[in-house]
């Protein structure tokens, strides 16, 4: 357990060089732009998850560039702990980026005075679309992680774009569906009435993550460096 905690800390140290002032400025602009355009801090749930998805690959990139998989072996970090650590890192990263986006957007909206918003006036229905968007990005991460563990970052860079392309393709496919009451959108509409959208998303994501973790553990166990 201590090793796992240390490993997560090591992942943050590993990714640290990527978090430059330039990166911080760019993501801050994206966050503020999104907040002002939508007038909602809750849209940052989706933005935060998107940023988490973009940054999640950093420890993989750094590990490959700097021979860190050998380091992990010399530090007695079990391969299962490496995989578990990367998943927990992704979880914490998503939490961190969502929180950062949320706080920055709140501050931005407050100072700009663009929108006078009140937390109490925002109902669950206004949050749901952003939670669904965040869930989609986390779902993409669940697909990307086993790819990184299977082939390494350099080879996975191209493959990891595939889920994004599939998402965009899926979006346009849904736009062309004449009867929106059918298919997934219709299903979520019906689910929304029951107020079970968020719990359903959580259950689905947890399931996907477990499958993803199992695949990653299997792939990484066989990797040689």
């Amino acid at each position, binding site marked *: 357990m201590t090793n796992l905690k240390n490993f997560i800390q*090591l992942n943050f140290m590993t990714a640290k060089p990527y978090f430059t002032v330039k990166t911080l400025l760019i993501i801050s602009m994206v966050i503020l732009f999104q907040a002002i355009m939508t007038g909602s801090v809750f849209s940052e749930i989706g933005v935060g998850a998107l940023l988490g998805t973009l940054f999640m690959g950093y420890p993989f990139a750094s590990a490959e560039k700097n021979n860190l998989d050998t380091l992990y072996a010399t530090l007695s970090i079990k391969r299962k702990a490496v995989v578990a650590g990367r998943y927990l890192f992704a979880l914490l990263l998503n939490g961190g980026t969502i929180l950062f986006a949320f706080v920055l957007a709140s501050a931005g909206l407050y100072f700009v005075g663009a929108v006078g918003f009140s937390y109490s006036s925002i109902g669950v229905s206004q949050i749901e679309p952003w939670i669904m968007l965040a869930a989609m990005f986390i779902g993409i991460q669940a697909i990307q992680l086993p790819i990184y563990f299977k082939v390494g970052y350099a080879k996975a860079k191209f493959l990891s774009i595939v889920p994004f392309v599939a998402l965009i393709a899926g979006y346009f496919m849904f736009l062309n569906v004449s009867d929106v009451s059918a298919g997934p959108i219709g299903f979520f509409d019906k689910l929304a009435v029951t107020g079970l959208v968020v719990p359903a998303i959580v259950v689905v994501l947890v399931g996907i993550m477990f499958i993803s973790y199992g695949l990653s553990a299997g792939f990484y166990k066989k990797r040689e460096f």
Partner: protein
Amino acid sequence: MGFIGPNGAGKTTTIKLLLNVIKGNSDNVKLFGQAGNVVQNKQIGVVMDIPMYVEDLTLRDVEKAISSFYSNWDKNKYTDYLKRFGLESKKKVKELSRGMKVKLQIVVALSHDANLLILDEPTSGLDPVARDEICDLLREFVSDETKGVLFSIHITADLDKTADYLTFILNGSIAFTGTKDELFEKYMRVTGGLHDLNTDQKGFVIGYREHSTGFEGMLETTNSSKLPKTVMIERITLDEIIIFLNKGVKLYD
């Protein structure tokens, strides 16, 4: 112990097997007498050909990143060794020369009081001064009899300076293992005229090679009485042993 052999013999592969970064075909890989798939990191220090630290981190950050994995990490030792080896803690890993990177990895090993240093080609690509410094470090390390070093190398001059024991591998098998003195007692250099040896006698010469004026090769000392007195038998160098063993594979039993 110096771990020697030509390129592709399996030196790095063996080290990687010891560290469990690649999988072997059997469970016979043991470190400190223990089989298993997790290296006992407290006891070993590893110096790889390619450094294992994030290039953009400073040496101070390197300590922050890895010290928590060692229960016996000594912060003061790390700082002291950095100073002693002229490594500035504010410098980034990528700003270090190759020799300095090797030193950094040795500093890390010394800071958690490793009993065994495993080094993969620590002196390759270094200038003579840096090589000499690394060899001095290794000699100092093994001056404590409870500590040992296993290093793969192909620079025989460095091997002469630092290794008491040698293991020579060829195509993944051990061709010789023992003390350096045993190696030089075991093999001799043999030269002679083109017609000095008959076919049976040529069979005793490892790496037999003919040139315009005669032949040369290596002989196991125990076979010296089987050759005629006309041939010249003399002390052999480590380089020649490697070359001749490579030519005439004769595996250790």
